[in-house]
């Protein structure tokens, strides 16, 4: 028999438009659209993509629960044997959308679900336990490989074959631990790992810790009326002309700018260079991303002590976790040095 697949994709990969179409509501197209074409080809006739469901990334992200239901209803109508989505690479909103749709489809329709993501995609942390995810590169340059791997995994699941350990089959681990007989007991393996580590040799843990660490919340501000507050943003709003040439995506730097003489962000003094959202509103009034105008008003009214004279800003799309953490450490150290009491950080 030929298996039936329904594929989920976003407005961009469906060829319907970029950020200006990110509010697109869910719609369904017969057959394979966008990446589903390559997926179907890689499945080599064993399965067909009977329909593609398409939704804008912002619509999905801003209405996650209801939009997931809408998409699921469209998927269900086509009675799929498996549901696929993406691949989302390192696109955060898209990865979140793919994960939410597939997790729901797996729970409700009880069919195999497969997508592909870069390990740092937030969709992995959110949904990677319930969705089979092929490990992909961080951008669509890896599309061909990702689709071939997704097809292989989908085929195995449809045939009810075992996937094997994630590491060996190119998957992101779902946190499933199976009992296997090992010729060495745990104590021996642990000592071997310790010795390898002491000798600075590579070794693989059998129980990896989560990637995102948690920290205890800092103590609150005691007296707001005396507090200095700093503004920080990953919304890509920078002085007009982007003097430090901060990248529009996958940023590797941030800017620190003197805002002591500014009372309002305007299209004349600041602009958004962010490559991950529709910049129209931010460029009409950058205060909708970095709220300088109202912060100044509240400062005049005495609602808090004073605004820190330095604004820290970067672009938070496709930015690697390692870079983002470094920006945070450096900015945090500078703010501590300056005696700042609290931060308001806005993200898009």
């Amino acid at each position, binding site marked *: 028999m030929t298996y039936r697949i329904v594929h989920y994709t976003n407005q961009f990969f469906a060829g319907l438009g970029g950020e200006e179409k990110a509010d697109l509501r869910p719609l369904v197209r017969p057959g394979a659209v966008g990446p589903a074409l390559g997926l179907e080809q890689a499945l080599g006739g064993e399965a067909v993509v009977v329909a593609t469901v398409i939704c804008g990334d912002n619509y999905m992200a801003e209405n996650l629960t209801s939009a997931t239901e809408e998409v699921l209803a469209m998927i269900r109508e086509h009675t799929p044997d498996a549901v696929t989505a993406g691949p989302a690479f390192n696109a*955060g909103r898209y990865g979140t959308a793919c994960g939410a749709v597939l997790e729901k489809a797996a729970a409700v329709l009880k069919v195999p679900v497969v997508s592909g993501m870069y390990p740092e995609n937030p969709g992995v942390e*959110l949904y990677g336990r319930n969705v089979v995810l092929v490990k992909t590169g961080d951008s669509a340059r890896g599309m061909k490989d990702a689709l071939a791997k997704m097809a292989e995994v989908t085929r195995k699941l449809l045939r009810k074959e075992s996937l094997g350990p994630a590491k060996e089959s190119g998957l992101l681990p779902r946190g499933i631990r199976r009992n296997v007989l090992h010729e060495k007991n745990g104590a021996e393996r642990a000592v071997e790992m310790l010795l390898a580590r002491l000798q600075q040799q590579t070794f693989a843990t059998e129980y990896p810790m989560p990637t*995102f*660490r948690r920290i205890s919340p800092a103590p609150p501000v005691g007296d707001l009326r005396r507090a200095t507050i700093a503004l920080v943003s990953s919304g890509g709003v920078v002085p007009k002309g982007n003097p430090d040439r901060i990248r529009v995506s996958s940023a590797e730097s941030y800017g620190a700018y003197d805002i002591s003489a500014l009372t309002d962000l305007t299209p004349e003094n600041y602009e958004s260079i962010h490559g991950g959202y529709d910049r129209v509103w931010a460029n009409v*009034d950058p205060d909708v991303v970095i*709220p300088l105008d109202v912060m100044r008003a509240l400062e005049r009214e005495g609602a808090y002590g004073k605004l820190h004279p330095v604004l820290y800003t970067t672009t938070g799309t496709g930015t690697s976790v390692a870079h983002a953490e470094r920006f945070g450490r450096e*900015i945090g*150290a500078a703010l501590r040095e300056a005696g700042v009491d*609290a931060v308001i950080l*806005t993200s898009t």
Partner: protein
Amino acid sequence: MTREIEAAANIPVVQIATIVPIMLTVGANRIVPGVAIPHPVGNPAAGPEEDQAVRRNLLLRAFTAMTTPVTEQTLF
């Protein structure tokens, strides 16, 4: 970035953004849900008065967040 600033400076960092699950995932401790991805602290389509009012409201909530003791990730 939010988490590392808070860790390095030991001061409260209030994050205002729209996708709450991502803020929870990356470890923000004080969270104020924003308006929309392209304009987290404003509602420009509703006109300048409403836009400013929305922004003021979000910032006052951020002030509440930074002056409130919390022991775990908290939405304000």
